[in-house]
């Protein structure tokens, strides 16, 4: 019994290594085999099927010995990590990228009136500053602006009216109607030589 387990295990190990090294051979169609091996293509393809069947049977044989109850306590953990890492930011999967880096710049989005005075966002908008920030990066991504930060995307932001797109996506409260002019601006903070520098850019202005 033990020697059988070892032989089957070794066979599986070699098969999986070959599969990893030469996947094109294992997934090749009958036509491809005939092209690669004009004389013996069909025989080799059938042999491949037999080998594939052997690998499947060997795997099923080994599955009997897997302590499922013990593995159940970690199975979901690994499946979720691998799935999230491969799939990325598509709910319910995520790599949880929040603060995975600390760039030496930051964008903050503000609401201002005609006199350039900051207005408290929650008084006029159902979205908070963090959500508006998400909106900005979602708009950049949707418009295929993949390089951003430090103001490098500003030409595209102006040309593609990203500010207007954001303005239309924001859920405004009725209190907004009391204002004749509303400006959505981006404050750009940057650390340079240990000092904090600040620049402001108007993204969109709605004035009656």
């Amino acid at each position: 019994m033990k020697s059988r387990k070892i032989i089957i295990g070794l066979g599986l190990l070699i098969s999986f290594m070959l599969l990893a090294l030469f996947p094109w051979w294992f997934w090749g169609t009958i036509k491809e085999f005939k092209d690669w091996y004009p004389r013996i293509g069909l025989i080799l393809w059938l042999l491949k099927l037999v080998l594939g069947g052997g690998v499947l049977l060997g795997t099923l044989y080994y599955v009997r010995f897997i302590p499922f109850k013990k593995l159940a306590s970690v199975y979901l953990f690994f499946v979720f990590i691998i799935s999230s890492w491969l799939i990325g930011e598509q709910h319910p999967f995520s790599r949880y990228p929040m603060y995975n880096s600390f760039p030496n710049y930051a964008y903050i989005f503000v609401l201002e009136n005609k006199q350039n005075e900051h207005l408290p966002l929650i008084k006029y908008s159902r979205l908070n500053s963090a959500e508006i920030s998400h909106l900005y990066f979602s708009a950049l991504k949707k418009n295929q602006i993949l390089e951003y930060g430090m103001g490098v995307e500003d030409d595209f932001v102006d040309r593609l009216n990203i500010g207007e797109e954001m303005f239309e996506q924001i859920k405004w409260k009725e209190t907004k109607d009391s204002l004749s002019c509303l400006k959505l601006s981006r404050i750009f903070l940057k650390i340079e030589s240990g000092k904090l520098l600040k620049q402001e850019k108007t993204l969109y202005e709605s004035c009656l």
Partner: protein
Amino acid sequence: MKAAFKAYISGEDQGLDYWFWIKLVFVLSWFVSIWTVFLFPGTNTYPNGFCTLFPCDLFQSSTIRILLFVWTLLASTGYVMEKYMLPSLASLSLISVIAFSLLSSKGIGYSNNFSSGIFIAQFLAYVVHFFTPNKAYLRHTRIQFPVQIIAASYVLSALSKLSTSDIYWFFNHEGFALQVKKSLLMTYINTGQEQTLLKADLLFNFLMNYPIITHTALFFALALEFFTFIVLLKPNFKVVYGWLLIALHLGIYLFMDIHYLPMHLLLFFVGAPLLIKIFGQKVKSIFKS
């Protein structure tokens, strides 16, 4: 009292009563996260998750949203009352994925909320129970499976930091100081509270001038996230580790003013319902004597 505390530290499910309170609080907090989906349709401008596969513009219809709301109520009731658990959990898993996909498709985040993962994990626990009935094992898996999802989320966060910034992540005190300042400025922008501006400047200067403290704190935060997998080794590990993770979130709130109540940790790691029960019994015994 000692026995009760021992039971608490064991980290094991303490029966139907305990499980009922976990379900009730969890489903209510979940509902609070998603209620806007039923009232404000929004637009599907940035399709995410479920909305990349399915035309989510259908949810603009008030009829569809009313039906979704009724379905949510029915599934939540079945879930809390421990009736028809398989269809209830399957429904809640699907509704949660739809709801957070809709919220995420508005471009304002939410793709990383793991309530959906928790519902799916509980659903799998009941599927296993359906095929291999074992009540004691179910009591273990309906908590342990969600613990795996939560632990995986924290480990993913650590891996994300290491893969993007590698070891430089916790050495970058200047970048961290800027993000702290940004976070506090966002609070000022939201509310107009002037004292937040003062706090932003104070913390920024502190973090810039004392880099060793920043490096140490960030190192421990990263290590705490990365080693969350140890909660899978023994049930009682998650109780202690849960409190450490809650402390991490508290630190994030104090420094960056990010308001986040870690309900998942309170329910599935530190067993808040049991702790409240023990505390209540202690208060009762003090008043009796």
